[in-house]
């Protein structure tokens, strides 16, 4: 059974003192419901994603205590992809007609903290300073640049694009364009990545209303079809976050596995995609993920970025709303923010940042600790 997206809603991303994550979740839900022209009482089930909020389902106190099954999800940076996948699968099971996936978070500034033992890592791994995600991203792109001939200037160009696109997005956290020179000159955090090449944990919420595809026109003049939504975890040998060791033999990462599975399920290839949202935890991650999701060969990014291929007017626009770099990362909401953006683009309603030429197929990808990835493919 096919699944359609008939409503999307977003609470802006950024910093909102005095506003709770649950309140932001309720705003996103109300906007998604209005977009689908339905009421909360019409919603038959929900999945809620969050890192900071134990029980996102508590949002019913602000929406209405209708007694629906409401399941909470946490799956690292792929939390929102998991909530959406579960919502879509619930429609596919056939018992329900209309449901919602919502994500919300409110993080304190700074790198994420945690107990390494919760990640099956030993305590000493955290004590000596290895239990931090940013240095993984530094190592991965540093190796990639060495192996595939990517320059520091390309990292800066990718970050500058994100801030430029963010400036066109009224919901973005960072809306000020930054020059490549300024990005390169900002404080080095984990070589070769500087401060402005990293996204920041922040606050926000997003929601997506899904229904049986055959009934989509009841709710929306512009339904968008969810052609695939997959989640994968790392296999042995993949180079992933929080790995005290790796085997000698390399294996492709979780993103590659999730991407291949999504293309196969959708019957759509990378050459068919018109607009893309990738996990750009840092500028290097966007570069690597372009290849891991099949949009170019390893090393081609150097030339393609210089040509402007991934700009809003380029051959394949990437992170048109500014991505994580300009929006920050409220973990539970981040992936649904990507879906929100792709839906607007495919409807032709993305305003100042609309991709020209009536895009028909969109693609989203999430990646995070400890090696979890989610991919969705959408089409008109």
């Amino acid at each position, binding site marked *: 059974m096919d699944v359609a997206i008939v409503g999307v809603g977003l609470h802006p991303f950024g910093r909102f003192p005095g506003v709770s994550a649950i309140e932001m979740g309720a705003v996103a839900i109300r906007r998604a419901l209005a977009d689908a022209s339905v009421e909360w009482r019409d919603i038959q089930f929900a999945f809620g994603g969050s890192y900071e909020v134990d029980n996102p389902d508590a949002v019913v106190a602000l929406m209405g205590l209708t007694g629906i099954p409401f399941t909470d999800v946490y799956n690292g940076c792929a939390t929102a992809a998991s909530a959406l996948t579960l919502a879509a699968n619930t429609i596919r099971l056939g018992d329900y007609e209309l449901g919602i996936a919502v994500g919300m978070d409110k993080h304190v500034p700074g790198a994420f903290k945690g107990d390494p033992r919760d990640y099956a890592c030993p305590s*000493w791994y955290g004590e000596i300073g290895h239990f931090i995600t940013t240095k993984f991203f530094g190592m991965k792109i540093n190796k990639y640049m060495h192996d595939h001939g990517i320059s520091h200037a390309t990292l800066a160009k990718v970050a500058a694009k994100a801030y430029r696109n963010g400036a066109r997005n009224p919901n973005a956290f960072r809306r000020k364009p930054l020059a490549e020179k300024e990005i390169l000159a900002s404080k080095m955090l984990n070589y070769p990545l500087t401060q402005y090449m990293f996204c920041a944990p922040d606050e926000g919420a997003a929601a997506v209303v899904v229904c049986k595809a055959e009934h989509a026109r009841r709710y929306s003049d512009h339904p968008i079809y969810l052609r695939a939504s997959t989640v994968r975890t790392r296999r042995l040998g993949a180079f992933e976050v929080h790995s005290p060791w790796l085997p000698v033999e390399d294996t492709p990462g979780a993103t590659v596995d999730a991407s291949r599975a999504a293309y196969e399920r959708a019957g759509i290839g990378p050459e068919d995609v018109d607009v893309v949202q990738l996990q750009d935890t840092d500028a290097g991650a966007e570069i690597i993920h372009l290849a891991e999701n099949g949009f170019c060969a390893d090393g081609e990014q150097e030339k393609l970025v210089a040509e402007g291929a991934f700009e809003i007017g380029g051959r394949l626009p990437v992170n048109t709303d500014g991505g994580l770099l300009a929006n920050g990362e409220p973990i539970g909401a981040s992936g649904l923010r990507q879906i929100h953006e792709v839906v607007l683009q495919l409807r032709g309603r993305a305003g100042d940042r609309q991709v020209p030429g009536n895009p028909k197929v969109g693609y989203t990808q999430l990646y995070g600790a400890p090696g979890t990835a989610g991919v969705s493919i959408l089409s008109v």
Partner: protein
Amino acid sequence: MARVPIAEGLFTWPSQAPQLIGARCSACGIVTFPSQGSCPRCASTKMGEQLLSRRGRLWAWTTQDFPPPSPPYTGPGGDAFVPFGVGYIEIPGEVKVEARITETDPERLREGMEMELVVVPFRTDDAGNEVVTFAFRPVA
């Protein structure tokens, strides 16, 4: 003042030529570091101790230029923080180990360079002991 390891069972200590202590799966032969009681490839629980070779090649690297969040980090923070290198060292035929690197100058680090295990000071504990940890240094 005693020199105590950051954790027991991590490397042979005290020793003039310390070695990392890993495990080898008796069923499929894969090597892990640190040692663990079950195999991440074949799920066997028959794991035996494996002392790792002391030399390998730099497979990936970066620098840690700001203090990691504490907890869990217990090393010097604030103004006392000293940036350090981090990388994976591939020990041929055994395993890639993630480790602190003694060199922090990007100009002096390159993928594929030969590295050797050393034990280095990490912090001083409440009893005045010098806590030591494992690291790799470029072989001159």
